[in-house]
């Protein structure tokens, strides 16, 4: 394991504005969906909101837990691949 070479203050100084912008992008994305007038929440948005809840946990390894939230946890191969693409969140989440 390598030591992180930067102090906490250096990390915040360096990356804060980049991630402030990303949070605003998420807010604007959700606002855009609201303005579309849709009442039904897409399963991907439901998953995204769960991820945002996870961000507020004080624990380490948020990235791993969020990736797990966005993963299919079944273990058996599916019968047939009817599509090639992935949606980014499991339909049941």
């Amino acid at each position, binding site marked *: *394991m*390598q030591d992180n070479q930067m102090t906490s203050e250096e990390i915040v100084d360096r990356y804060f504005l980049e991630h402030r912008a990303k949070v605003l992008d998420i807010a604007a994305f959700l606002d855009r969906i609201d303005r579309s007038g849709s009442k039904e929440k897409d399963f991907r948005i439901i998953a995204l909101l769960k991820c945002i809840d996870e961000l507020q946990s004080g624990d380490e390894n948020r*990235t*791993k837990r969020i*990736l797990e939230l966005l993963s*299919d946890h079944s273990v058996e191969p599916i019968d047939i*691949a009817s599509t*090639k693409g992935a949606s980014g969140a499991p339909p049941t989440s």
Partner: protein
Amino acid sequence: MMAYIDPHIHMVSRTTDDYQRMAQAGCVAITEPAFWAGFDRSSSQGFFDYFRQLTDTEPKRAATYGIKHHCWLCINPKEAEDVGFAREVISIIPEFLDCPTVLGIGEIGLNKNSKNELIILEEQLALAESTNQLVLVHTPHLEDKLKGTNLIMDAIDNTSLDPTRVLIDHVEEHTIKSVLDRGFWAGMTLYPDSKCTPQRAADCIEMYGTERLWINSAGDWGPSDPLAVPKCRLELASRGHSEELINTISFGNPLDFLSKSGKFSIS
């Protein structure tokens, strides 16, 4: 300028300008796995021509910029649902395996984690076993990655393949530890929207070290960046990491793994 290797990039989808920019950034060698072209090919002959492109055309194009080009051959999992078709393609692979720039079988793996994809993965693992080839593994995208990575590792464990001769690519924070713990090499792909950004790859290096780990751009026809490896090196340098660490992750480690083929060369 430190030299680097991009061990996973699809140059058939990139322009010659990209070769030039990579060479200017220090790239001395690349390896190109066979992959899905963005459409399903209509016959196995299409793969025969693709393998000729990988073994003949691309090495010449790369050489113009002083970059050594090697490749991996297979049928990719996105075209593996039709088992009969996939077997036709697998049957033409052996005639290319003796080419001096073919390093092994790849990138094989799973896409949607289907039964037929798994059958074709197992048959290509058997081909690698019987011909003593290195293996480069593609793990699925997004929500399918965690399950697919576990299915793939189980399938490999059912063979006699030495895990130190298998690299499992596109790992992220939820798969990297299990891949390394089970003795495989792991690859982090640096993509702008999916997989790892250069910043997250640098985080993983800080958390898991550099042993049996490499970084690659997997540049292709989708959103991707053929200069992602030098960008990750810059990220590591800007965090204060040593030249030795940066060289290990972007040159020494790919050199070590690829040299197990007995064919990889940077000169």
